[in-house]
């Protein structure tokens, strides 16, 4: 049990870091696509 606890802690940290990296990567890609693309969706005129 003593050994498992630090392992679990390290594992949870690893997961969090990966998730954060994933979120940042998806956000960067979203910004790239939104910024580079220029589709017109009602032009902000409606909706």
């Amino acid at each position, binding site marked *: 049990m003593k050994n498992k606890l630090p392992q679990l802690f390290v594992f949870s940290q690893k997961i969090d870091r990966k998730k954060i990296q994933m979120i940042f990567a998806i956000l*960067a890609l979203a*910004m*790239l696509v*939104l*910024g580079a*693309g*220029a*589709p017109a969706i*009602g*032009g902000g005129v409606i909706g």
Partner: protein
Amino acid sequence: MVGSLNAYIKKQVFQAPDFKITWLAVLAFAPQFFAFYLPATREWMPDLLVAMILVTSQVLLLAFAYLNRKLVGMWVLIGGLVLNLAVISVNGGFMPISPETASHLVPAALVQSMPLESRFGKSKDILLLPENTHLEWLADRLIAPQWFPLQVAYSVGDILIATGAFWMLAHQPLKKESL
């Protein structure tokens, strides 16, 4: 989603694209956020400033994309970005859209009430007749099919950008699951 499904089928872990200098994407996109997406700021920004913001932002995004060119699909995305940047640059800093195409997105009467060469609402588009548009084949001239829930006009560059992004997410190198 496709990337995650691919990883799940192969019993491996989906890896997000490993971008370099992510801060550059944030820096490049932030002005566009204020110019096009945030209602409080986009309302008062003069068109000249918005045009400058769009071109500058896309140049910075091009730099970001080029620095990450080794990622799967990035060259396709860069191709789309270059095409959009080219047509925007030679048409006064906005993406041209013809009144006919615009009337597929909003009521035709509303389009007719807008003067030519004016911005199409607060979007990245400018209303231009095809004969007055430079590189017209790169403009927002394609329309989503009628059955598609979101009516949108897009360009050849937009298709490449979407394809590149899809390819990037769908074909990311996978990693074996490990504890």
